């Protein structure tokens, strides 16, 4: 090794050295930047959902009309802007909050630590995966302020970007083009990240750590990044077709030239369905660790848990058209997609039951991460069973594009993925930052989140069953009561979010020194053998796994 790199192994650079972050090739620093970026994007995406809930609090157009000014200054515009909010809320939460937090943040931090590696396989490429995200976010953010539909700004066609609404007829302005290129950059970021994780996991496991001894979080990231690697390029193709249809006169989704907008839906959901598993799989890994740690038992059925994730990943590629039951596909095709979708309930059930079996007979302590994890298991199960309902093509004909669907995917994402993120956050906070958080406040945040999220989303099942449509800013008076309750739920969750920031500030100010392993004998993975925070470069001598 050259003398140059030997010196930089020696000491930890100062926190205030801007090059440490901007030029970083350190997986922990890059992971921290991802986490900060995810918080930042989550606040913006969360504020957008606030606009949505404010509008839906009562029938009529209160917020998105020409006279309303938020805080007396911010004009919210017409109901097109409501759709822009819905669209951007979805895209931001998926691409700029959950994915950066789970894969970029926790993945970067703990995959190398848990497999006993000193860093990622491609530390420099790791950094461009991160820095492409602010670029992509910038493009998406800009798109809200440039021409979209005739006379409006921003793209309001939903995160699924279906043509013809996303074509020249729906949104002739440059907003859609910016959004397409934003997703291209986010996609490149994720593909490079995926290559990095797979190479790291295959090539850099500590001596003795066979695939079948790998921690479940590493397994979950491995499956996730394979889904990213294989599904995102298909989205890139679909987005490029959209771009050339808009700007270079091709006919991919243009019936006048023999094209078909349904083709876009197939390509989009071939990416989109694996994408929703990308959002939740790392959460499965996090929850497995927490449940096992605080039950002081190894995970029940380790191999079954690992291969359940693998089979969820594989089957996830074969079910995409269940998002498209109402496009007029043949009944045989629907029958296939119903059956294939139901099959996914089997490995998912294996996971749920194995978590419960892990707790069964365990010596359980209800520390903060465990509360979030148990909350996750309950809420994800609710979202899972409504998923089985929606998997039926006949039932979906009535529920398609209603609030039942909105409730379903928020139960698995807003309450599943996000609870898993917070579970991981409070599980690893001390390891990452080297200080302790106030666990009373963190439990309080959990309480507000658990109550708030359920108050927001549980009534939406009723609204959907009664036929309330998604992506419409106004609704019939009969839906008023449950909508009002749902909006109050947002306020409760908002308090939880404020507590979250109080926890950060409190932890930063009181600086209680973190322990290497605050969780005791249940925490068995390699990250707990290191100090908190770990040294700038860990495992200079590789650990040996028996």
């Amino acid at each position, binding site marked *: *090794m050259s003398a140059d*790199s*030997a010196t*930089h*192994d020696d000491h930890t650079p100062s926190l205030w050295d801007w090059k440490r972050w*901007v*030029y*970083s090739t350190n997986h922990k620093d890059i992971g921290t930047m991802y986490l900060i970026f995810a918080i930042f994007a989550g606040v913006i995406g969360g504020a957008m959902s606030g606009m949505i809930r404010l509008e839906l609090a009562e029938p009529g157009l209160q917020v998105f009309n020409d006279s309303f000014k938020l805080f007396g200054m911010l004009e919210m515009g017409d109901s097109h802007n409501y759709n822009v909010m819905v669209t951007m809320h979805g895209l931001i939460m998926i691409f700029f909050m959950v994915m950066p937090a789970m894969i970029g943040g926790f993945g970067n931090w703990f995959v190398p630590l848990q497999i006993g590696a*000193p860093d990622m*396989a*491609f*530390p*420099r*490429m790791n*950094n*461009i995966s*991160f*820095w*492409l995200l602010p*670029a992509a976010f910038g493009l998406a953010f800009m798109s809200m302020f*440039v*021409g979209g539909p005739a006379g409006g700004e921003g793209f309001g066609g939903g995160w699924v970007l279906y043509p013809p609404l996303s074509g020249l007829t729906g949104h002739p302005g*440059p907003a859609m*083009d*910016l959004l397409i290129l934003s997703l*291209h*950059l986010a996609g*490149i970021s994720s*593909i490079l990240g995926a*290559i990095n994780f*797979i190479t790291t996991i*295959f*090539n*850099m496991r500590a001596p003795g750590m066979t695939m079948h001894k790998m921690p479940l979080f590493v397994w979950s990231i491995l499956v996730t990044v394979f889904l990213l*690697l*294989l599904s995102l*390029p*298909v989205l*890139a*193709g*679909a987005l490029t*077709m959209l771009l*050339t249809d808009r*700007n*270079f*006169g*091709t*006919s*991919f989704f*243009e019936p006048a*030239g*023999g*094209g078909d907008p349904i*083709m876009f839906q*197939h*390509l989009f959901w*071939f990416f989109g369905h694996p994408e929703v598993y990308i959002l939740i799989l790392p959460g499965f890994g996090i929850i497995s660790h927490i449940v096992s740690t605080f039950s002081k038992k190894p995970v029940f059925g380790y191999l079954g848990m690992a291969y359940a994730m693998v089979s969820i990943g594989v089957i996830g590629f074969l079910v995409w058209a269940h998002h498209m039951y109402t496009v007029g596909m043949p009944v045989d095709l629907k029958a296939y997609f119903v059956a294939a979708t139901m099959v996914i309930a089997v490995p998912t059930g294996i996971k749920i039951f194995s978590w419960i079996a892990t707790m069964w007979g365990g010596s359980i302590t209800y520390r903060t991460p465990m509360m979030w994890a148990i909350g996750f298991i309950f809420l994800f199960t609710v979202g899972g069973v409504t998923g089985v309902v929606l998997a039926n093509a006949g039932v979906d004909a009535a529920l398609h594009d209603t609030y039942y669907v909105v409730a379903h995917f928020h139960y698995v994402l807003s309450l599943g993925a996000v609870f898993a993120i917070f579970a991981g956050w409070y599980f690893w906070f001390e390891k990452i930052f080297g200080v302790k958080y106030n666990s009373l406040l963190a439990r309080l945040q959990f309480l507000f989140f658990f109550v708030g999220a359920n108050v927001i989303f549980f009534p939406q099942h009723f609204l959907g069953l009664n036929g309330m449509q998604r992506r419409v800013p106004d609704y019939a008076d009969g839906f008023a009561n449950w909508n009002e309750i749902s909006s109050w739920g947002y306020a409760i969750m908002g308090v939880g979010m404020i507590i979250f920031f109080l926890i950060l500030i409190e932890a930063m100010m009181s600086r209680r020194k973190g322990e290497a392993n605050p969780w005791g004998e249940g925490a068995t993975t390699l990250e707990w053998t290191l100090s908190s925070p770990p040294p700038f470069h860990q*495992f*200079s001598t*590789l650990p040996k796994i028996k």
Partner: protein
Amino acid sequence: MSAHAANHDYHLVDPSPWPIVGSIGAFLLAVGAVAYMTAGGLFAEGPLAFFYGDGVEGDARGTSMGMMIGFAIVIWTMFGWWGDMIKESNAGLHTPVVDLGMRYGMILFIASEVMFFVAWFWSFFEYAIFHEVRLDPGMAMFPPTGVETFDPWHIPLMNTLVLLLSGTTVTWAHHALQHDDRKGAKLGLLVTVILGVCFTALQGVEYAEAGFEFALADGGNIYGSTFYMATGFHGAHVIIGTIFLFICLLRLQFGGMSAKKHFGLEAAAWYWHFVDVVWLFLFSFVYVIYQG
């Protein structure tokens, strides 16, 4: 070496400016591309109005300046970044395990490229196989009425032979280098690069003679869209692969790579074979099976 010196063979890369520089380039490239494509629809007014078209209202395209700047930065990043990698390799930092990692990386990158082409083939097969449901009667067959397809046994067959031959010459170059025959390696690469350029030139001739249009406004339809985009992206990959091989040739010329260590050349060869296989699929399906 200090007391904390690493006791493993992994490569802990020094901090590098290239990721952020490349991201800024990509951002400018994207904004510039939108300004170009939408002819001043972006920033027609305000401080960024210089992105506005070349000044003529109703121009089909805006200025390409932003795009060019962004592209230049991306190219600069590639030279800087990969130049650093060559330096690191020469410094002996690419140990066997690091080398293996790069092999994983290249295979996975090619896997993602394969999935990118899946999208274009999917689109092609959708319209080729399920054409009878199209509303416009002219589209209810494939290729659609009025589309004059190529005779696959002329230029396309020629191109197939050119690419297959180039696959053998790149293997020749690789084997020569393995036996430390640098002259042979350079000759093999030179022939490969020339064959790559020939392929691109022949493809250009073919495009010029095509009996169907690309854009809807010019009377084009879904055939032109799928044909030009699928073969066009393949062509772009041929050009990238040719450049990749040409860089390897330059490195050989200036004393880089050795009989033992030449993963750059191997990666270029893998990429070249991938491009070759995509062409075989294009040739079989787009040119032969679905000819008019």
